[in-house]
């Protein structure tokens, strides 16, 4: 930046500090350390051309590929002396913000950057379809609560269910990893511990110690349908996923309706209400239609290789009512099935006792899942937790196909 060169050094540092703050507000997590790093980097590289300055700051401030876009926009706006106001007005005009569904990626990102840079200049009200759950919770009949459909619960019952979900014990399955840990009956001799133990006794006795494979919970990837037909369930499912995310390390959650949104970070907030608010802020397609095939395709292409490693279990929450099922749906669900260790379909439609797999979308997807389970009340959630920890095969999807044939 040629024009920053003439500024006094203090002024220049200040500029970088403000820029870092703008980036932080735009959603790039930056600590004070990175500001110091940036100053050091700029000093090392010297302020040459705009391009070099750009990449110097980029090297320090951007730690994720996704953040490049935010950085780029913030940089363009922040370090542009002339004409930025016109651009700002153009970007904030109703034509741009009024049609978020058609232009999903960029206007949203710009909005975040603009909000960060000019906070207070113009408030962007995001519609939050928050259900107020302020009813005081009294201990209701647990039996009734256990089996009551989530869709038919009153606000008080929903609150009670939330508490119950929080208490669900997630005794998930353990898988063997390739890492070894001390083990009393392991199959490999742990020479290091053997020698140390024998040194303690003066080296006369050699008492063999062993190591065995360490076990670990596999990662969980949840794909949650948030279309209109699922709307009565999504909130409680999100609470359920928040509870899992809280209890375990590797949980990734994606919401999909007409497009796919990764809300794993939002769900990591400790407080469930804050987590859910953060979720709704990042999703644009609440209660719209469903495009399962498109969403699965997006997941397979962009995320599957990033989150489905190390034997992940996929929980697919959907009613399977695809708008227009075709061979693409079959292709994508098959690919998803082949890339994970276990694919569990959680379908709230199974609450109806006379459920038959008649819808074409459901018939297409069933052969490619390892399990299909109901998930419409607390009892079914509890059963899911148990089933996941037992390698249970008692929810074989083929029985549904046979029944409807």
């Amino acid at each position, binding site marked *: 930046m040629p024009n920053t060169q003439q500024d006094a050094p203090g002024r220049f540092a200040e500029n970088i500090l403000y820029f870092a703050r703008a980036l932080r507000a735009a959603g790039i*997590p930056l*600590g004070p*350390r*990175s500001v110091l*790093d940036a100053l*050091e*980097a700029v000093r*090392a*590289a*010297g302020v*040459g051309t705009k*391009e*070099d300055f750009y*990449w*110097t700051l*980029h*090297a*320090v401030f*951007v*730690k*994720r*590929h996704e953040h*490049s876009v935010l950085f780029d926009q913030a940089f363009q706006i922040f370090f542009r002396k002339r004409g930025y106001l016109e651009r700002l007005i153009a970007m904030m005009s109703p034509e741009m913000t009024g049609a978020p569904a058609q232009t999903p990626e960029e206007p949203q990102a710009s909005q975040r950057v603009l909000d960060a840079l000019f906070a207070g200049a113009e408030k962007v009200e995001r519609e939050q379809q928050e259900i107020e759950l302020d009813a005081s919770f009294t201990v209701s009949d647990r039996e009734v609560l256990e089996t009551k459909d989530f869709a038919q619960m009153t606000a008080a019952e929903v609150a009670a269910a939330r508490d119950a979900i929080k208490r669900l014990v997630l005794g998930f399955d353990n898988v063997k*990893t*390739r*890492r*070894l840990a001390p083990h009393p009956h392991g199959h490999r001799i742990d*020479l*290091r511990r*053997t*020698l140390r133990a*024998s*040194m303690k006794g*003066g*080296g*006369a006795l*050699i008492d063999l110690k062993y190591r065995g494979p360490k076990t670990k919970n596999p990662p969980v990837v949840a794909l949650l349908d948030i279309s209109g037909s699922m709307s009565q369930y999504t909130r409680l499912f999100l609470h359920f996923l928040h509870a899992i995310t809280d209890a375990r*390390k590797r949980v990734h959650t994606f919401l999909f309706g007409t497009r796919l949104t990764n809300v794993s970070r939002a769900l990591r907030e400790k407080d469930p209400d804050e987590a859910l608010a953060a979720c709704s802020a990042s999703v644009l397609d609440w209660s719209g239609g469903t495009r399962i095939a498109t969403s699965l395709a997006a997941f*397979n*292409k962009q995320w599957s*290789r*990033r*989150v489905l*490693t*190390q034997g992940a279990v996929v929980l697919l929450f959907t009613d399977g009512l695809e708008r227009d099922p075709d061979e693409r749906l079959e*292709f994508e669900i098959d*690919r998803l099935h082949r890339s994970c260790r276990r694919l569990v379909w959680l379908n709230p439609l199974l609450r109806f006792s006379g459920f038959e797999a008649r819808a074409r979308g459901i018939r297409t997807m069933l052969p490619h899942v390892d399990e299909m389970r109901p998930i419409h009340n607390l009892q079914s959630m509890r059963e899911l937790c148990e089933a996941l920890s037992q390698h249970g095969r008692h929810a074989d999807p083929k029985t549904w196909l046979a029944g409807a044939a």
Partner: protein
Amino acid sequence: MTQKILPVPNSIDDTLKLLSAADYLADRSLATVLFLALRMGRPIFLEGEAGVGKTEIAKVLSQTLGRKLIRLQCYEGLDVASAVYEWNYAAQMIAIRAAEAEGKQDRSQIEHDVFDERFLIKRPLLQALEPDTAGPPVLLIDELDRSDEAFEAFLLEVLADFQVTIPELGTIKAERPPIVVITSNRTREIHDALKRRCLYHWVGYPSAARELEIVRAKVPGIGKKLSEQIVGFVQAMRKQDLFKSPGVAETLDWATALSELDAVALDPATVSDTLGVLLKYQDDIARLEGGKVKELLDQVQAELRAAE
């Protein structure tokens, strides 16, 4: 190995020159990150699709700066014993027996003798902290995403302070920090705490002009027309909706294969026969079967003709 330590580049332009001297044609953005990393003594974290030349950067750095290249290939279950150090237990046991035979009684003395540097087997990370006559070595931590979180956490100490702690010996610190290059294919997210200590760069696919330069530098003797067609075709392919787009490594493999086959220009039959060099998923190959290859080829040829 030379005794004189080759200096690190002084500017971004120098860095670019240094890289191109080893036939690595980099974008200015990458050169900036490398320059800063060398200058500030920080690790470089390179992320990108497979086959875009991430690992190559470490090799080129070691080659052009005349440094030793120490490579640590990550895998699931990688532990301290195979990444940092291991004691030579057999030799230790012999030493204990020998001490006993000599009639030594002092237990703490035996323990002290046994946990001596003589019995230490140094693995890559420890080797990288040792001084070298040619200057601090280049430490390549390859495909970090394949290791598990536990190992990643262990790396924090190494990367922040360039030191490791061995309980029996104490802390070993590098006099001069090695040049650390970490690569990841993004099969999982690396924790922010680790990334924070590094300079991050996303290595993308090169532009057509850049890729053409790379092909001509790396596959000597390739015809002008053929190389243009190859690059045009690969670039067109990356715009298709493929599960795995071909990387630069695949382009180079393909160019080598075609020049070995003495091809002068691309034709649909040759492309279909050699498609396996470029695409590694059956679905992707199936997508390009039928008239698709010819269609793409015609498009590339029309573009090349228009550019002339």
